[in-house]
């Protein structure tokens, strides 16, 4: 339990963060006088085109700074504690908006394009996070998500090249599931340390896929040339400005991630199986006493988690470039874990957190176009720093399932 003193300390920390953001925005993000930031909301080809969003740079940034200062000051007054997380959330969103206006001032920038890219880039992170939720809810820490994503990407490319996109996707899911099963076997049956097992899966998959791509793909390029799933436009809905391209004109991976987050939520919180899974994660001994097969539940959930990660891995090859490159997941699995923690072990939370990371990812890409003086490396670091802050408990309370990471020995 957190003591009242801790809570007061966290409230003050939040206040300091918000005030610091206010100062930062007011002093460093002020555009030149009279500059306008133009956000394009639709493309000329769209069915229902709507006009650009034009924001006066200076006034917007000062208003943002004032709001941040107000939120920060409120944290030091009585009652601020109750809205701590909300204030911080709003504050960060305002700061990001101010940043965007500052970066765009005097230029034009396609907001819709960036939101669409955000969605796409969030997919592997969201699916990685979802895999994390599914396995940690049954108390299996899954550091191996990165490896499972990589295995899915590789299998998608290989099988997709030989048999076509759909079989490639099915194979990627199957291989992801196989690694989930292996993880379950190592940690449940052979009681290997969960973190070591995950690290090993990552090392093994990285080694195996790099080995095959240097040993086989270099000679047989036709084995690494898979078809790519194109975006499918949902009729009518896809024509809505801004939201349409973001949600309803995407490839099956985006739809898949959205549907899976919904299904996983329903499964975990509204079905008997889900209740059992959570019981196993919170108190395996009690679950066992009630007749729930702890080992079986862990096997099933971790295997399904692997399948989800395999699907997410296929995004890298079948969803974007159609070709496998060594280590192409680039730490997305770890960010997925971070998304899981951000999302407080809830599928929808993980999806939302993945969107935040996806936003940072696409913003980092677009910043090069906007030519701001901020090095893209720092933006790339932001999600990791944010994760550390979250894990340190400075932003709200993030509680893992009680038995997380602990092996269970049936008596």
């Amino acid at each position: 339990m957190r003591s009242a003193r801790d809570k007061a300390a966290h409230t003050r920390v939040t206040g300091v963060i918000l005030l610091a953001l206010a100062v930062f925005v007011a002093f460093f993000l002020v555009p030149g006088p009279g500059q306008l930031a133009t956000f394009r909301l639709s493309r000329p080809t769209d069915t229902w085109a709507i006009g650009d969003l034009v924001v006066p740079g200076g006034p917007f940034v000062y208003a943002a700074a004032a709001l941040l200062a107000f939120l920060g000051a409120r944290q030091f007054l009585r009652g601020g504690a109750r809205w701590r997380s909300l204030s911080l959330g709003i504050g960060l969103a305002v700061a990001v908006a101010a940043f965007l206006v500052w970066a765009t001032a005097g230029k034009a920038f396609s907001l819709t394009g960036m939101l669409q890219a955000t969605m796409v880039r969030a997919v592997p992170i969201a699916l990685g996070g979802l895999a994390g939720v599914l396995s940690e809810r049954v108390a299996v820490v899954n550091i191996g998500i990165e490896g499972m994503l990589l295995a899915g990407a590789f299998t998608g490319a290989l099988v997709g090249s030989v048999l076509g996109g759909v079989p490639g996707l099915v194979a990627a899911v199957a291989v992801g599931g196989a690694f989930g099963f292996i993880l379950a076997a190592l940690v449940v049956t052979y009681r290997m340390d969960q973190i070591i097992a995950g690290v090993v899966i990552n090392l093994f998959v990285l080694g195996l896929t790099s080995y095959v791509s240097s040993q086989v793909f270099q000679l047989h390029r036709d084995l690494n040339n898979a078809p790519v799933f194109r975006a499918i436009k949902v009729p009518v809905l896809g024509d809505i400005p801004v939201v349409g391209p973001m949600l309803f004109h995407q490839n099956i991976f985006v739809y898949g991630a959205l549907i899976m987050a919904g299904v996983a939520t329903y499964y975990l919180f509204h079905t008997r199986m889900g209740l059992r899974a959570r019981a196993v994660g919170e108190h395996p001994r009690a679950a066992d006493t009630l007749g729930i097969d702890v080992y079986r539940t862990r096997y099933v959930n971790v295997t399904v988690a692997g399948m989800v990660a395999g699907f997410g891995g296929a995004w890298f090859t079948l969803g974007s470039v159609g070709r496998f490159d060594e280590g192409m997941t680039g730490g997305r699995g770890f960010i997925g874990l971070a998304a899981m923690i951000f999302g407080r072990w809830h599928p929808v939370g993980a999806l939302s957190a993945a969107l935040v990371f996806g936003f940072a990812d696409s913003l980092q890409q677009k910043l090069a176009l906007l030519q701001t003086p901020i090095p893209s490396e720092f933006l790339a670091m932001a999600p990791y720093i944010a994760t550390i802050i979250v894990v340190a408990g400075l932003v709200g309370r993030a509680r893992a399932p009680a038995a997380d990471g602990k092996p269970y020995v049936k008596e």
Partner: protein
Amino acid sequence: MSATTTLTDRLQGRATVEDLVIVPLFSVAAALILGALIMLATGVDPGTIGRSFLALLRGSVGSLHAVSETLTAAAPLVLAGLGLALGFRAGLFNIGAEGQVVMGGLAAVVAGFSLTGTPAIIALPASLLAGALAGALYASIAGWLRAATGAHEVISTIMLNLISYRLLDYLLRTPFIQKEGRDDPISKSVPDAAELPRLLSFIDPNLRVHAGIFVVLLMVALAYWVLFRSKIGFEFRAAGENPVAARFAGMNASLTIILAMGFAGALAGLAGANQVLGVLDRATPGFSAGIGFDAIAVALLGRSHPVGVLFAGLLFGALEAGGRQMQVDAGVSIDLIGIIQALIIVFIAAPLLVRALFPIGFERRKPGGPAP
């Protein structure tokens, strides 16, 4: 008994001869066999497999050059592995050696080229020290977070690893660090005075083994002394085995965690310094080459005992050096070594699995023991 030894037991070295000798031997053998099967599966013919294993042997211990390469590859693995072993003993699972290697190596480069013009007696120790300090500070972030807020070090060190890569990319392009006249991210070179001298260059200038191996031996001795002969080492071990008891005995748990992480980081930082001052002579993106991750395997294989880590590091160094020879001689990609290393850790970390695979050679599990 040994079937029920927990991970903590094994990390902390309370293990039987069976666990110390037989399991590692079986693990290496099983990993090599599986490696051969993977080669078969990817269409490598049996003759080439035989040749590649011969090349592996020849490239690791078959000549003076091979031994030199093995030692060169082993040095940073042992250093970083020692750091991780110290952490394991204190009950900390530090995945962050990679980031600490990056920061240590970078700091050593910066110190090295900043001290151009000073004699070796100052430049070299100062650069090494800078590496150790940077690694220690970087690791202490995770230690402090763990002690102050309870943030789990596994997640925070993974994040610190990812941050360190971006920081390296950025810093390598800053005017102070970037090599003059270059557009790509590459640091200035370390002057000769700050380099770890090559030991056998009088025989053949291609022999790369350098004075870093003395640093390694010194650190093995120091780590042994810290762990088993000093008060702070006792506190590390006590905190790792039973944090509650350690706290009731009056030990400062927070301080122990931060110090253990600091020590671990210093050793990983030295590993980075060892690479840039002994081998690479400059920092580039990816200069850490996964040393921090391989070191996890080294520390596990060495049972978190300094002497064990030394031998495990030598084995992994031999695999690395032999793997390069394998690639040249038999055309089998060096990435195979990564697979073999991963398999070795699986078997080491899951003795129950080794027992299941090899029923002969192990004492029988007691009836009524935990079900596999």
